[in-house]
Every structure is written in structure tokens, then in C-alpha cells.
């Protein structure tokens, strides 16, 4: 679904992404974890086509992003970190706009049906800014998947949500996986990664340090002295492995 090979991104003399390679398979939720400034957003931006990588190959659903950018973009749905839609437009107008951009026929009935599915039937006429954080994320996810993309990119989708909204969003992300789509998500929440991701890659200083299933990572590092040193209450979690691998220092 997504193949990233030898990806490099440089900002002047700063090497933000160094030889990153990974893949996302159909029906898989792949998590990209890393501290601030690790290179997650740069990697994601390169996949989304928002920045031009220095080198490397990106293929989305078989389309080379450099050679067939529009085909590759049509095969992916994107939820950016900041849900940025025109503040003057209502929810249904935003849905209509993106349906038009992705070439999806959209009637008023269909919009109503889609909003009912995400339990926002009464929000059609509301401006996007009038919705709560959780409601905004639901609309944002709906728009990211409006054209039934084969790959869905989610950049920190649950940041700032309350536990109920977060759980609800997890269910929606899992429903995307059930449809056979590949999902690539970045997150700071190890709880989220453990709960929904089939595989995760830990990225730091622009490099992929390790890729595996969350439980495999925990099992592999369970006896590691560094992991044991940072673990709390005697139970090793993915967060302990993450902290042991990326260090305790807070990044800017």
C-alpha cells in the first residue's frame, strides 16, 4: 500500500530524515512514533507531497509519488495535524468541497447519511469552528476517507481529545482497517500505539531505530536493563521501551 525506500530530507545543512525505509500493508495500522523533532512530520510531509525529498522513493498503491503525483495523491486520504478548513464554510459545504476535489458525486442526502454515520447529523449547517475538538476530528476523518482511499495518513489524530472521543476515534480508525485500507499514523501516545497499531516504527534523529509489533517490542526489551530502569510500577510498557530507546531528555 505504501513503500518508502531510502528517504532523505534535508533543510539546508540539517539532515532531518536519514535513509528512512518502511512499508504499510493493506489492512494494517502502522504507527510512527518519535519524540518532537525526530523527523516524523518531515517523513509524513514527504509522503503527502507537501515537501520534496532530497532522495529516496515513495510508492503509494503502486504509484511513484514523483512520477505520478496526482495518482498517488488520489490513492491516499490525509488528516493533517491542524484541521484546517475555511472557517466561513459549514460542515456540509466542506464535505461538498472535498467531494468535488476528489471527484466523488455528493448529494444532500448522501451528506446527511455520512454525517449520521459519524453521529453528527445535526451539524450539517454548523460552521466547522463551532464543533468540539472530537467532532472536528470526526469530520476531518470523514473527509480524509471520502474518496475511499487505499492509504490513510493520520497525523496525531487524537491529540487534545478527551478519553471518550479518543476511544471513538480509535474505533473509526479500526473500521478503516477492516475495510482493507492501510493506515499510517503518527502519535505521541504510546497507549494509542499499543491499542490500535499492528506495527510501529520508532524514529529518532531522523532515523528508524526499530520496526515491529508493539507486543514484540515489549517482549524483546522486557529484560533490557535500560528498559527496566525507566519502567514504573514493575510493568514494562511500550512507553518504557520508547523512553529507553530515545532517551529521557525532553526535546524542544
Amino acid at each position, binding site marked *: 500500500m505504501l513503500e518508502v525506500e531510502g528517504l532523505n530530507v534535508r533543510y539546508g545543512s540539517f539532515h532531518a530524515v536519514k535513509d528512512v525505509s518502511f512499508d504499510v500493508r493493506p489492512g494494517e495500522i502502522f504507527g510512527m512514533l518519535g519524540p518532537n523533532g525526530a523527523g516524523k512530520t518531515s517523513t509524513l510531509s514527504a509522503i*503527502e*507531497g*507537501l515537501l520534496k525529498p532530497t532522495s529516496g522513493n515513495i510508492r503509494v*498503491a503502486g*504509484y511513484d509519488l514523483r512520477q505520478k503525483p*496526482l*495518482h498517488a*495523491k*488520489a*490513492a*491516499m486520504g*490525509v488528516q*493533517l495535524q*491542524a484541521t*484546517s*478548513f*475555511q*472557517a*466561513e*464554510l459549514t460542515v456540509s*459545504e*466542506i464535505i*461538498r*468541497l*472535498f*467531494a*468535488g*476535489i*476528489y*471527484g466523488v458525486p455528493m448529494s444532500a442526502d448522501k451528506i446527511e447519511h455520512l454525517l449520521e454515520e459519524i453521529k453528527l447529523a445535526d451539524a450539517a449547517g454548523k460552521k466547522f469552528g463551532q464543533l468540539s475538538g472530537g467532532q472536528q476530528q470526526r469530520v476531518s476523518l470523514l473527509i480524509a476517507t471520502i474518496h475511499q482511499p*487505499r492509504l490513510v495518513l493520520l497525523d496525531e489524530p487524537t491529540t487534545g481529545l478527551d478519553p471518550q472521543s479518543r476511544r471513538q476515534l480509535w474505533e473509526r480508525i479500526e473500521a478503516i482497517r477492516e475495510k482493507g485500507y492501510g493506515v499510517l499514523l503518527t502519535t505521541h501516545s504510546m497507549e494509542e500505539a499499543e491499542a490500535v497499531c499492528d506495527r510501529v516504527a520508532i524514529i529518532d534523529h531522523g532515523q528508524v531505530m526499530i520496526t515491529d509489533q508493539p507486543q514484540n517490542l515489549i517482549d524483546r526489551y522486557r529484560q533490557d536493563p535500560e528498559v527496566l530502569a525507566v519502567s514504573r510500577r514493575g510493568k514494562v510498557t511500550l512507553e518504557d521501551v520508547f523512553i529507553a530507546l530515545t532517551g529521557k531528555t525532553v526535546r524542544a
Partner: protein
Amino acid sequence: MTSIPSSTNVLGALFRADMTTQWRNRRSAVLSLLVPVIMLISFKNFVSVVGAAYVMSTSITIGIAASCLMGYTNALARDRDKGIFQRLRVAPMPTWAIMMSRLGVQLVTIVVSVLGVYVIGFYIDHIQLTPAAYGFGMLAALIAASAYLGLGQLIVGLVKNPETVNSTTRLVYLSLIIIGLFGERGGLGEEMKTITKWSPYGTVKSVLAAALEPGAWTHDSTIALLATLGYAVVFTAAGIRNFSWTSR
């Protein structure tokens, strides 16, 4: 097989959304029309002295400059800062479609503004032009708008912060208008008169004045038209070259 939406569909969807946004922000568009309206009212008793073409061309120049420099430019800077362009750029469409839609909406706004000036000029100043003059005037207004839209594009290309863009456009607008109004009549000296004549304010006004009075088109009008087109090309090229889709 992944299908790519047609450019027509994409442009249609963008244009509809941008027009809706413009309509919901119509108060600011109406406010930018206030200056030319005040101008038309103030010049009511001087039309016979300075001429209808002068009054109309001055009002249209001021209106277009306000709409392009402050309306278009600030909207671009604000939406860029909010990340709206980034959200659109991840979609399967050429990036020129985003700007094309914005420019389309701006041209509609300009047509409406010029028609507004025509109507107010007719009712308040009793200015009645020939149908050809109205037509040429509209055409000249669209050419003039390209110079000011280019200037706006250049500002938003050089300045990232939306607040700074806002203050820069006000500064440029006021400088153009105030120096233009005083300079063109020689109130600031002969040197400033020449500078004003060939500034984006002066050339635009010359083209508009000549277009609104087609019989008075001179060699200088042709040079002013070429200069206006030159400003449009240079400003737009520099603006596009320096433009960044994100303010960060």
C-alpha cells in the same frame, strides 16, 4: 485503478467554496468599496471641472487597489497561516487550481466593484458614458487589477506573517493613493509628478481614464498600458517565485 478528478470539476468545487467564503465576508468587500464611493460623492461638484473620466478613473483605481491589495492579499496570508492551502495541496489536483479559483473570485469582485462605481457615478455624479467607454473601462479595470493582484502576490511572497502582511498592504495602499492623488497634480513637485505618472497608481489611472474616454487615447496611454502589463508580469513572477505555501 485510481481515478483523477477532472480539472474542471476541481476548479468548480474550489470556485464554489471560495465564492461562498467571499459572500460570507461581503462586509469587508463592501467596506473596501467605501473609499471610491466617498470619492464619487466628494467630487460631485467638480465633475465639470476635472472631467468625468478623471473622477471615474480615480474612483476605480482606488477601489481596485483596496480590493486587490487588502482583500485578496490578506485573505491569502490568513488562509496560508491557518494551513488551508496545505490541506488542499494534499489533494490530487494541480496547485495552480487553488490560485486560479482565488483569482477568479477576485475578478468577479472587481467586476461587481466597477459596476458599483458606474452605478453610483451615474446616480450621484450624473456621469453617463458611452457603452463602448463602459466596456473598455471594464476591460481596463481587469488589466489594472492584474497589476495590483501581482503586487499583492509579491507582498504575500516576501512577507510570511499575516499581521505583517496586513500592515504592509495598508502602508503600500495608502502610499500609492496619497502620493498618487497629490503627486499627479504636481502638488509634490515636478519630479514626484513624473514618478507618480509612471508608478502603478499613475499608469493604471492613465489606462482607465483613456479607456473611459476612448477618443482621448494617446501614445502615452499605450505606454501606460504596456507599463501596467509590465508591472503585472514582474510583480506576479516575483510573487510566485518567492511564494511559500506555509507561513512557517
